[in-house]
């Protein structure tokens, strides 16, 4: 049978098709508002990824947006490789996790997010200066700071060994309640006292383990130490300042401190210090609570004696290395309004609290107003062990290479110029002046446009 298409039926069908076409966007299907893809940092804490997925899916269902998350490991810098590939190709996820300096690196391809971050600052108050330094470029926010994977690297010490061999009661000095902090006691925790106790602990057969390789754990604690002594590599106006009395003082100090560290610290990667403390051989490291969490699983008797607390104070103050993570929205994303809304949702206090809880307190929001989450107070054993993980009291956050322009800082940090300098002096036994000259030449190279 052949059907005949008359002029009347053609017109009728065309009218129906037109009507369907113009009304379709307003019909709310399961995913009527499109799709969003996220490339997120793969959390090392089991279950932490699920918390983020849950937060995103809840938002997706409510807003009729299909959310798809790819968790990308930072092992072997795979997350950075993926971001670099997407930036070169101009296509990929809508939202991408960016660790440390990656917002700087991809700034030209990242959507301004002033509206999102502005709203968060209005809601939660001042944001971490390190997050601002890394993600606010020429007055524009190019990334939203997140708690996921964000960390500081304070001291994590064996309180029993400090008590026994140095006579220092770390739990009394840094109790699990900020209102009980005694300024007079905390003021005694200085880099000089740290060196003295490190020497005693070395003598007792339990050295501290401070990495001096070229990865972030090493760069971060050395950066904080430099800050405490006022040693600057390059200032904000591109002046090379490494040749200073402060640098000489801090390097001389490090000569003494590194002598009481195990010799293998020069080869440690970011897991080296964790293994050191978990093994029970070490008395202290500078790290987020990841080492405590693994010790809890693998060596509970060590975990029970660990206490996270503030860094020592130097002549210019008390600094701790901070490494925030960000979410960036690629300029080539096709669903920017939805992405911004999701970013805002993910950054709400309730979401942050869920994330911190799922990571057993490892994730650290960039808003000080969120440091009162109960997780840090209640997790253990021992209860209160990570209470002082978020910077409290007079501890300030910092990042190695600051206050240099962030573009310059990215080069200094990633090429680990500070720790190579220290290694040349303390391990290679090169002359102090030669080391400083070498650093000057290297720093000069980081200033090229």
């Amino acid at each position, binding site marked *: 049978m052949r059907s005949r298409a008359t002029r009347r039926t053609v017109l009728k069908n065309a009218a129906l098709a037109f009507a369907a076409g113009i009304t379709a966007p307003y019909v709310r299907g399961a995913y009527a508002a499109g799709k969003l893809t996220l490339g997120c940092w793969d959390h090392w804490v089991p279950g932490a990824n699920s918390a983020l997925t849950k937060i995103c899916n809840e938002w997706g269902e409510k807003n009729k947006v299909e959310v798809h998350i790819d968790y990308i490991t930072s092992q072997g810098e795979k997350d950075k490789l993926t971001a*670099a590939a997407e930036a070169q190709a101009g296509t990929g996820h809508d939202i991408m996790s960016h660790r440390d300096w990656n917002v700087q690196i991809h700034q030209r391809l990242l959507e301004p997010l002033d509206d999102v971050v502005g709203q968060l600052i209005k809601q939660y108050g001042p944001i971490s200066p390190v997050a601002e330094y890394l993600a606010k470029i020429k007055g524009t926010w190019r990334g939203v700071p997140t708690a996921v994977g964000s960390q500081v690297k304070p001291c994590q010490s064996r309180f029993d060994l400090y008590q026994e061999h140095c006579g220092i009661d770390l739990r009394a000095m840094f109790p699990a309640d900020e209102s009980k902090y005694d300024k007079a006691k905390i003021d005694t925790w200085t880099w000089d006292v740290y060196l003295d106790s490190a020497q005693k602990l070395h003598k007792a057969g339990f050295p501290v383990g401070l990495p001096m390789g070229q990865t972030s754990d090493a760069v971060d604690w050395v950066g904080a130490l430099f800050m405490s002594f006022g040693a600057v590599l390059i200032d904000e106006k591109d002046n090379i300042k490494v040749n200073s009395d402060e640098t000489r003082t801090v390097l001389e100090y490090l000569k003494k401190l590194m002598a009481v560290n195990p010799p293998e610290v*020069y080869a440690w990667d970011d897991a080296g210090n964790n*293994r050191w403390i978990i093994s029970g051989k070490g008395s202290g490291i500078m790290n987020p609570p990841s080492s405590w969490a693994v010790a809890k699983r693998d060596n509970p008797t060590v975990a029970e004696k660990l206490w996270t607390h503030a860094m020592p104070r130097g002549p210019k103050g008390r600094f701790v290395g901070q490494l925030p993570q960000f979410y960036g929205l690629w300029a080539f994303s096709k669903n920017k309004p939805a992405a911004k809304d999701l970013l805002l949702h993910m950054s709400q206090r309730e979401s942050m609290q869920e994330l911190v809880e799922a990571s057993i307190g490892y994730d650290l929001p960039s808003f000080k107003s969120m440091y009162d989450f109960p997780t840090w107070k209640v997790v253990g054993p021992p209860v209160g062990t990570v209470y002082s993980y978020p910077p409290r009291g007079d501890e300030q956050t910092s990042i190695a290479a600051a206050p240099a322009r962030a573009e310059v800082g990215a080069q200094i940090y990633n090429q680990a110029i500070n720790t190579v300098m220290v290694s040349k002096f303390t391990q290679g036994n090169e002359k102090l002046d030669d080391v400083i000259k070498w650093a000057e030449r290297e720093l000069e190279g980081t200033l090229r446009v």
Partner: protein
Amino acid sequence: MADIVQSWLPGGLSETAKAPIRKRGLRRLMRRHSMIAFLMCLPLIAIVVGLIIYPAFYSIYLSMLNKAQTRFIGLSNFTYLLSRDVFWMVVRQSAIFALSAVLFKALIGLITAHLINNLPAKGQRKWRGMLLVPWVIPLALSSLGWWWLFDPTHSAFNWFLQLLGFEEIPWLSDPYWARFSVILVNVWYGAPFFLIMYLAALKSVPEQLYEAASIDGASAWQKFVHITLPMMQNIIAITVLFSLIVTFANFDIVQIMTAGGPRNMTHVFATYSFLLGIRSGDLPLGAATSLFMFPILAIAAVFILRGVRKRGREIG
């Protein structure tokens, strides 16, 4: 217009008559060996163009851009690198790494190939299989295994050394021992390739030559120097060239075991390029670093291949 087209057709064939000719032509074309060979190679050509030639040209282009990739700066990245101490250290280290690793791989390959060649045919296959294992395991995996053996704090080797009453060795924390360790792993991984190539070459040396030499009273050493080595010269040269290229461009071993440290003293071109390009976000400078390998390897290739051609002509 139609008339003009018509005038080109011989004898003014109709459209229905043209179809079988076209079909026959296509069939004839497909029947040509060169055409079939080309079609069969096409996937490989596409892979080579897409994954080697295009990226190579793209990296040349990239190396001539500024850090933000917004401006053409000519050869500035290259001149900048030439003025850096660390870069020259990387050049020296790459040369030490590649030359010493290739030398030891060639030596070990030659010795083991001889040993296996002299085994009875029945046992040979077993040994060949076992000795090929390092080459068959994915390099990233075996490097990780080696890293555990050399682990700075809990090295299995050191545990064994201590058990025997010796001092611990700072395998990865001392820069010179670290260089030794990465070279050792490269030799362990690459020697089986030399072994298999040399074994194949040894098998192709005519037995009559050795018999004639034996009748003339030649010693084993004389047979090796005057028969085996000359007969193997070309395969040695090609194997060395191939291994030199692969070793020079090695990334996995150094990245996994030392990541270039301590004090940048184990960086090779590939790891330094990764540090500058991916970790520090200066892709053009990273591309320029990796391109420095090209002229060095090109010169080596020209010399080695010229020798191979010369010997080929002499034999011919």
